């Protein structure tokens, strides 16, 4: 087998940049220089073997740990040290030595590949220093802002807690009062109640009759609706205009199935339709369509009917309505579903108790170790791209809306802090957004970066339906080493 004899070539101190090269075998970092003593045999750094020194960097791998070939690509697990004077020293895998690609900015990795590399360490160093200075400034100012935020959050929290306990106290007081009054009242009302119960029963009966009447009216209405040719009869084909009545759920209402619904007859009149109606009323969808609220007035009582209509399985339908509500009352994000539900029809008795509960919820949020993220609560931030307007409402939801019209898509509701250990608060996760065709529900990862402004910097969709957002906020800014220090010196161990 061929073996290329590359003799130890001591780096002649190209003296690029300011540092002076100390003589040592190629690819050896300064701190390991003493292991490579020309005058003695070389012992692999894992101690596994000792070889004559002329086999160091001879382009043949002798040591299992690769330590005999710090300057060649011979060992699969070796690493090469670039001094990179003027920039940052670094190690590269030895497979990148002489591979024709410039890896070290001081060009030392390409000493025999024929490629000519430019020494770019000085520029890189300059650039990095500038960036670091800028970063440091941002961090400094951001951190000052953060302190302020923390202070505000503290005050806000205290206020809210105060308000909450006040409210709770007053509610308790109120409830006690009510209890007391009730006792008084109940004793007084005992005879009256019995009479009332009788009334109530009568009322129930009346209500049932009313319900029946309503049912009949509805049936008549449906009959007319179904009787397309107005011949006073509902036929199989007329029934088939309502595919939702399909009993086996295969999506098609066949002749036989329709006939079955008509109890075997081809046609029924309005009398015969009574039986049919009981078969179909659960499924029947009126042609007078839409998520409508039916308000039926009867006597002194208002009946609110909640109507749920399954919309198309498309993601977006109905988003708007949800949003308005959520934005209005700063409610916690609701379970999002694909049905259009007629929220306004819901009997609302919220006002009396919602305030303390929403306060409790707000207080219970994890707004960071010093509640520095609290200021984001109930705020929204937008970013407009070529096609879409993205909207981030921290601790609530992320959404996307086409710039030129179209409905909004939910990209996820607040999930949790999701950063890696040690920097948990660097990433927010929003999930359970609108579902994707054959895919997962949309979700968004929000990466927080230190900045003076609070703003969405960028959005992308690295994988279908998994969004990534960059969000700058002072609240994530770390305390600089020393607030008083001006531009910090380049930290050689700083990770990039």
């Amino acid at each position, binding site marked *: *087998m*061929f*073996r*290329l004899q590359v003799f130890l070539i001591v780096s002649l101190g190209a003296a690029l940049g300011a540092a002076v090269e100390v003589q040592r075998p190629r690819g050896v970092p300064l701190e390991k220089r003493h292991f490579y003593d020309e005058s003695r045999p070389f012992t692999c750094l894992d101690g596994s073997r000792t070889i004559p020194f002329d086999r160091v960097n001879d382009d043949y791998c002798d040591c299992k740990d690769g330590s005999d070939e710090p300057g060649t*690509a*011979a060992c*699969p697990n070796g690493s090469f040290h670039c001094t990179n004077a003027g920039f940052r020293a670094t190690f590269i*895998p030895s*497979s*990148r030595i*002489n*591979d*024709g*690609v*410039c890896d070290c900015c001081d060009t030392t990795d390409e000493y025999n*590949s*024929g490629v000519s590399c430019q020494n770019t360490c000085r520029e890189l160093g300059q650039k990095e220093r500038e960036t670091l200075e800028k970063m440091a400034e941002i961090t400094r100012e951001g951190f000052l802002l953060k302190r302020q935020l923390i202070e505000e959050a503290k005050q806000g929290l205290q206020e809210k807690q105060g308000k909450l306990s006040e409210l709770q106290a007053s509610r308790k007081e109120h409830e006690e009062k009510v209890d007391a009054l009730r006792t008084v009242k109940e004793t007084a009302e005992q005879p009256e109640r019995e009479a009332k119960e009788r009334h109530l029963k009568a009322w129930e009966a009346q209500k049932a009759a009313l319900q029946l009447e309503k049912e009949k009216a509805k049936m008549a209405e449906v009959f007319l609706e179904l009787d397309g040719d107005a011949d006073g009869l509902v036929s199989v084909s007329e029934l088939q205009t309502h595919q939702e009545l399909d009993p086996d759920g295969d999506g098609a209402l066949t002749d036989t199935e329709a006939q079955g619904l008509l109890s075997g007859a081809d046609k029924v009149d309005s009398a015969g339709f009574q039986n049919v109606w009981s078969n179909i009323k659960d499924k029947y969808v009126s042609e007078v369509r839409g998520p409508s609220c039916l308000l039926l007035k009867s006597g002194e009582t208002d009946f609110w009917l909640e109507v749920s209509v399954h919309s198309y399985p498309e993601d977006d339908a109905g988003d708007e309505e949800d949003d308005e509500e959520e934005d209005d009352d700063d409610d916690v994000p609701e379970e999002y579903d694909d049905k259009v539900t007629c929220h306004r029809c819901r009997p609302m008795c919220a006002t009396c108790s919602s305030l303390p509960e929403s306060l409790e919820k707000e207080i219970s949020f994890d707004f960071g170790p010093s509640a520095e993220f609290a200021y984001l609560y109930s705020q929204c931030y937008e970013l407009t791209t*070529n096609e879409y307007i993205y909207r981030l409402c921290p601790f609530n939801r992320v959404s996307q809306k086409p710039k030129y019209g179209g409905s909004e898509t939910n990209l996820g509701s607040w999930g949790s802090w999701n950063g890696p250990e040690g920097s948990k608060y660097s990433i927010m996760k929003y999930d359970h957004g609108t579902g*994707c*065709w*054959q*895919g*997962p529900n949309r979700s968004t990862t929000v990466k927080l970066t230190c900045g003076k402004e609070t703003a969405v910097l960028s959005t*992308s*969709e*690295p*994988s*279908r*339906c*998994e969004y990534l957002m960059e969000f700058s906020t002072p609240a994530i800014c770390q305390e600089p080493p020393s607030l008083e220090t001006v531009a910090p010196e380049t930290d050689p161990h700083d990770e990039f």
Partner: protein
Amino acid sequence: MWMFWAAWLSSCLTVTVAVDRGNFKTCDQSAFCKRQRAMTPGQSPFRALLDTLELSDSRLTLQLINDNNKVRLLLELYRLQGNMTRVKINELKPLKPRYEVPDILVTDPPTEPLSVVSRDENGVVLSLGAEACRLIVSAQPFRLDIMEGPQVLLSLNSRGLLMFEHLRPRKDTWRYPSFTFLFFQAPDEENAKEDESGMWDETFKSHTDSKPNGPSSIGLDFSLPGVEHVYGIPEHADDLKLKTTDGGDPYRLYNLDVFQYELYNPMALYGAVPVLLSHSPQRTMGIFWLNAAETWVDISSNTAGKTVFGKMLDYVQGASETPQTDVRWMSESGIIDVFIMLGPKPADVFSQYASLTGTQSFPPLSALGYHQCRWNYNDQEDVRAVDAGLDEHDIPYDFIWLDIEHTDGKRYFTWDSSKFSQPREMLQGLMDKKRKMVAIVDPHIKVDSGYKIHNEIRAKDFYIKNKDGADYEGWCWPGSAGYPDFTRPDMRAWWASMFAYDQYEGSMENLYTWNDMNEPSVFNGPEVTMHKDAIHQGAWEHRDVHNLYGFYVQMATAEGLIQRSGGVERPFVLTRAFFAGSQRLGAVWTGDNAAEWGHLKISIPMCLSLGLVGISFCGADVGGFFKAPSTELLVRWYQTGAYQPFFRAHAHVDTPRREPWLFGPENTAVIREAIRQRYGLLPYWYQLFYHAHRTGQPIMRPLWVEYPEDAATFTMDDQFLLGRDLLVHPVTEEGARGVTAYLPGRGEVWYDIHTFQKHNGAQNLYIPVTISSIPVFQRGGSIIPRKLRIRRSTSCMENDPYTLFVALSPQRTAVGELYIDDGHTFAYKENKFIHRQLTFANNTLISRFVDLIFSFLLSSPCV
């Protein structure tokens, strides 16, 4: 049938969303197939008119007459060099010319003299050269038999299934009785009527095929006495050994874009190679049915369904019946033009077929590295990040791929101006790392008057026409699209010129091409493809040329890549659709598979089948295209793909990201190791491709190719050989704790390439496996070159030393070779390469030049 499949589906594919079978025809729904199949074995109505026999030096012609309708056919017989026979049958006087497939044969096959040995009123005996090889023409009923000594090797029309629908004028009403298929032996009147249907038009789902030329199908049967194993006729997602088709559909050859294809059935897929191989311990033969129309192949066997016990019983009782396999080909139009390759060894059949349709193109070395693909890498930043991610995790790769989203609105040859605003900058960034890119160029062209490519094609009138003469338009990725007529040489020349650097904006020499959707895929067409009555140049119907379309697209594209470099650089073009001869043009992959264990398993027989018919450069989407693979499946797929010729990871746009480092450090390490093994063995891979290119021998081989007498190997398709010397048994079972590999060759030894442990041949070996195991063995007696310095890409490793792995035979000898050239140009054609034969004997390694001329100087001292 439906019930059967439904039951099968529910038992095997519990959660799978599978192909919508209703979108694709069964034989019963394909009128000509139904008519052909309605004819059952019996006495053939054809008679050879011996008095019309004419024999020139190498060509025999003879008229055949159908006694039922008196239509005459012309039979031509040729004896070809290299132990082949060509049989052509056409109408003697067709109403108009019938299509004969051009451009597939590399040359007019050289012939050898035919001579009449004997002749009487019953037939003629011809000599096929020496060794008692005879061709017997029987007159009534007409049949052909090829004999060697007393043994019949192969018979044509022995079951009387020759059927030739002659062209006929259309009458006012197609039900007119004179159109009754007289030569069809319809058993009764009712059947005859039914058989007529679909002759002058045919409706499938909402599409009507107008069939202005009426019926034109052809069919012929072949009998193979002594044969129990037949292979080939890809592309099907099925076992290596072809199954009998009695009671089911025939194997179908009709290039189709099948959404979420199903495994283990004879449905047509993206490509078609009408070549069938037969094998028995005594002889390997091949049948090449040169026809580009929709084709169905029926296979039946007299031993099918017999258990081993049943066969033994036959043997013990001395049952007279020898095993026999019968094959029946049916095509919708064209002529019968069939090449019978007589072997006798597998290697002979490969050479014979290669002499007809050419050999595997010799790809640039980089194309044998790892390919990182996804639909889609979103933008330049994404490309940069993936490139950096692979570097960060020390994973080598050579190509990163861009799918359709890189274009400006699916206008090929363009770039999305916001996502890929600086393509040359991006390509330069890759070039600085010695890496390359592939961008997709599909053949459907957006109909858009603001699109240069469309305007030029329209101005040159290069689009395929619909039946009414207007430009054919179909629906595909860009919306409404035209389909250039790639059967036109002038169209192909123009297309090729579009790859010039000054035409294809943003392209550079490290940008290569991928042709997808070239079946062609037409979303709103019948069976998701083009209407058969669409018209190509020369007034040929799409029906006649359908299976050629993808071949021509790749041909024009590869030519473009060659031309842009002034003829210097080897092209690399991947295609999804293919035909016989596509091996000359680049690589193919098995299309839109799914992230399921079954799809991983099937990748082996699918690529083996392609290799048997010349197309060696084959691979499956690593990880599976549809759906998200489990981590274990992804890892196993990398391990399998690393040992298959074309090694590309790909994923559907709706699946989560799956770059190799996204599954935790342990899995990243296992995937990295698999890819590194690939790079280490690239010298061997390259040498195998060189051989495939020179000789037509497959790269990925079923075991029986090298061990033709070992019946244990005949149905094996969970393991394979690379060349002769590496045996691979990838782990393709979920949760596997071990695999049982069969090591062939009595008296041979095999070495585990990871542990160097020695195992004897001719045994089933149980190998315990962990998640990092890839069972691979090197044959004792072989020398395999590797490169052990695994770097970022193949060209980063260009100047690295080779390490020879010498695996000794029990006789303590070994042979091997080493092939080295510049890795990317055609200079090897001028003998600028090193090719050395290595021999190890008596503890000495000797290296000799294989080729006499040596003018290639390596830039580094190697070997």
